[in-house]
């Protein structure tokens, strides 16, 4: 397994601002992912964070809204840009250690007013 730290654990933000979420892993990993979990719902993959190249976004998510950085094999950031109340959600990072198994951070609980 891996120890995954996410910061911040929660935040309350104003409409129109941006928030950057950090994900730190205690070991080098190839695969890192970002998910969104809206209240009472399942997890939806936002993008795969690729080290040394641009992230791969899923349908419905775009780089301008959710820019991602992956400067090395232990760290990634997700920015939620120009926030609206609809962006209120839990944002989770995960790492893939085995091909079919991902380990998740505790999540960032975002409320946008």
């Amino acid at each position, binding site marked *: 397994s891996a120890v995954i730290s996410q910061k911040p654990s929660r935040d309350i933000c104003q409409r129109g601002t941006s928030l950057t979420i950090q994900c730190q892993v205690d070991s080098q990993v190839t695969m890192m992912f970002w998910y969104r979990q809206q209240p009472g719902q*399942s997890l939806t993959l936002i993008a795969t964070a690729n080290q040394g190249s641009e992230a791969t976004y899923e349908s419905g998510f775009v780089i301008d809204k959710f820019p991602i950085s992956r400067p090395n094999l232990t760290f990634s950031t997700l920015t939620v840009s120009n926030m609206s109340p609809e962006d209120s959600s839990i944002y*989770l990072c995960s790492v893939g250690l085995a091909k*079919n198994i991902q380990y998740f951070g505790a999540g960032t609980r975002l409320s946008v007013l």
Partner: protein
Amino acid sequence: GESVGLHLPTLSVQEGDNSIINCAYSNSASDYFIWYKQESGKGPQFIIDIRSNMDKRQGQRVTVLLNKTVKHLSLQIAATQPGDSAVYFCAEWGGGGATNKLIFGTGTLLAVQP
């Protein structure tokens, strides 16, 4: 912390009973099927997985059954304990063009009554 189970199907069981959580999946080409447990305020935690060429796999107090004919997956928890209370998600991995991606199901809230 907040609840992630506000709109999810709920299974209520008595402590000590066995629990069976069901999941229907969509992609018959998926290579693996995985169960995750998410407690309130935490991220999902891996429980157990099963490869598509198997129909049963057992872990500690948990058993996963896979029925590919009807695209059905179940998680059985023996002697359910209060600490098992959580939301349980099934997920599919691999298959076709969806390699390296986990596709999560809707989730089930397991409520264990003392």
